[in-house]
């Protein structure tokens, strides 16, 4: 009640408040987070494997675990994070207005978002791209064999434009069958309205489990667009930008150095200088970030390295069953690459 009353008073004094806010010195995002005691993290309103509430009401997913890693690095407690489920159209406004501290919501890094929206992409935690889902009975091994196929696609998306580009570039004919929502699109494909279903590859796996017989369908190897997804922060706070960026890099580095939740205590005894630097036994990179010396230890202990997070949420053992592909480490044929911690 007290809160409501003071809220009303605040609302009435809107003009006054605005002046007061302007007069205050800009405080850093990190200090705000430490004061309020949690990270406010923008996630999706439900995307399998990336951010979704489970039956007990806990958020799970790759994007969610990234936020937990941030909380672990700052507070040594992965539960000190609160999630705001944002729709695709509200997400950037919510970040700009300070409603969330970081947006970890399968957002594609584009030049427009990076510049004119006043945002900074802190890295790429999932390399996505548009792919095709077909019936195995079609006996197609490559998207280039799809001439004359009918394609179920969601209207008004870049997906629709990408698929048109792809077929025109390759001089193939196709017949688009468009729908308003993803649910209708996959239902139509399941009902046999079209030969091919197309959307972002991670989405393909998520939608595939909605089919009556998922095993009768396969994802073709071609990826016809680039969709680098990653966490986003707003312009104007480079320290916070660094923290978000290096939290991601720390998880990659931990995988690269084979530091995992399981062997963390062993690794703390390691004499390998690279491992020692990463885990804070040598050098003091954590405090340079504004965090503690053992920030990577905290991340790995509470959340895990990138491979663990990937496998837990979207990997081959989950229902989504996505292989690492482009998201493998750079030295294993993928694109995940972190600058050295030194």
């Amino acid at each position: 009640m007290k809160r409501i009353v003071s809220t009303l008073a605040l609302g009435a004094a809107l003009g006054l408040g605005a002046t007061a806010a302007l007069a205050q010195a800009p405080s850093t995002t990190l200090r705000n987070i430490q004061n309020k005691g949690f990270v406010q993290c923008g996630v999706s309103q439900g995307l399998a494997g990336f951010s979704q509430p489970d039956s007990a009401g806990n958020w799970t997913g790759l994007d969610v675990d990234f936020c937990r890693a941030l909380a672990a690095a700052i507070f040594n407690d992965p539960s000190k994070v609160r999630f705001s489920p944002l729709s695709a159209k509200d997400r950037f406004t919510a970040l700009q207005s300070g409603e969330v501290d970081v947006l970890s919501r399968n957002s594609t890094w584009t030049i427009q978002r990076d510049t004119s929206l006043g945002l900074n992409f802190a890295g790429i935690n999932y390399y996505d791209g548009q792919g095709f889902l077909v019936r195995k009975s079609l006996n197609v091994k490559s998207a280039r064999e799809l001439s004359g196929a009918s394609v179920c696609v969601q209207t008004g998306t870049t997906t629709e434009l990408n698929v048109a580009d792809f077929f025109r570039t390759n001089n193939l004919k196709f017949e688009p069958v468009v729908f308003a929502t993803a649910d209708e699109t996959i239902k139509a494909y399941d009902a046999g309205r079209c030969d091919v279903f197309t959307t972002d590859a991670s989405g393909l796996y998520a939608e595939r489990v909605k089919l009556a017989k998922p095993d009768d369908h396969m994802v073709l190897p071609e990826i016809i667009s680039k969709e680098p997804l990653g966490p986003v922060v707003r312009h104007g706070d480079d320290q916070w930008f660094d923290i978000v960026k290096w939290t991601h890099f720390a998880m990659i580095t931990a995988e690269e150095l084979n530091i995992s939740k399981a062997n963390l205590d062993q690794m703390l005894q390691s004499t390998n200088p690279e491992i020692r630097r990463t885990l804070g036994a040598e050098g003091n990179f954590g405090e340079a970030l504004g965090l503690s010396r053992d920030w990577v230890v905290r991340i790995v202990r509470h959340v895990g390295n990138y491979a663990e997070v990937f496998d837990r949420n979207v990997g081959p053992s989950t229902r989504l069953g996505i292989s690492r592909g482009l998201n493998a480490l750079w030295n294993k044929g993928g694109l995940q690459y972190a600058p050295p911690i030194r």
Partner: protein
Amino acid sequence: MTMPNAPTAPVSFTRGEILQAAPPPASLVGPIGWMRANLFSSPLQALLTVVGAYIAYKLVWTFVDFTIIRAVWTGADRDACLDEKVGRSVGACWPFVWAKFGQFMYGFYPLDSRWRVDLTGIVAIVLLVPLLIPSVPHKALNAVLFFGAFPILAFNLLYGGSIINPWLVVLGWIAIVAGIGLLVAYLMGRADGSASDAILKYGAGALAVGVAAMVLVRSGMFAAPALPVVETRQWGGLLVTLVVATVGIVAALPIGVALALGRRSKMPIIRFLSVAIIELVRGVPLITVLFFATYMLPLFLERSPDAMVRVLVGVSVFSGAYMAETIRGGLQAIPKGQFEGAMALGLNYPRMMGLIVMPQALKLVIPGIVNAFIGLFKDTTLVSIVAIFDLLGGMRAGFTDPQWASPVTLYTGFAFAGIIYFAFCYFMSRYSIFVENRLNTGRRR
């Protein structure tokens, strides 16, 4: 020889009693007769009946077939609801609803605190049901409890924090307002010499009590008996739907009456303000205001109001503005003679409105009022804009769970949500018809 004059009864050639009526022909009575009269009285009627029956059969059968006959009732994950695993065509996947039931009802409300929501619901029902049944006595006490005490209790339970402080804050404010009112009355009375010292005493006393209550709250003395705070961000599901709808519905009527009277007032400033509020609010979509309040306000304010407060204020003002126009429609239907009669009796404005005009006007527009309530109940889905999952939002998030993603999950979820929404809206609609019939004494035929 004479005939023995046996005592014979006079022979009558007319019937003493009425002949039993023959039963009507079988084709005119019973179910057959009823059907002939009402369903097949002409070829066109017969055709319409057959077509209608076919459509009704199709709809009802499809629904029953999907939700009951072909439905799956138990299971641990999506495998239970897949055609090839079950070996037949599967209807509704109810295990999905059971598994997500907590989500649909409470959202992210902490598991070990959910009893607080249940208790609030039980208290609400215990207080509301007698209020709705006309024959139950003690209506005034009941209303005070439901509209006065229950909101504070609900705040105690749902939000948590200190148990005593909210009561002190409310009491304190009431005392302060009453005290100031009395003091003003005293000062005004002094001008014409009718002031009594009693008013001054009571006024000062009330003010002192109010200030004391506020000081007690500030001192943090009663912070001790407290429930853990559950941020409104963690609220969700049906809980949010009901909280937003109830607050909107309860707030809409007084706001609407005030604005409707203001719009018809002869005082130019009040009239202008009322018209401005009504037109401004009706001219802007609710979704825009919520979006602005959620994402723009923090740019101006050091610390922005709680998301749920923004929603509640927005929804109340919105439903109030729409309600004002509904009530104005009722006011316009009251003949001028009623106003003039009331004035001729010497009633002042509040009494004229309260005793003569408003009862008639509100009675006329009950269907419109309930229409607005039902619309509001379904508009609560807009809270997903401020990143709160209501019933429908939580359900949509549940659809994406790969553990439950199956061809029928989507239909099951929407069927479940539809049943819940229908139950509430149908209840409101039936109750409004009941109230209408009860109050419709002047026009009953």
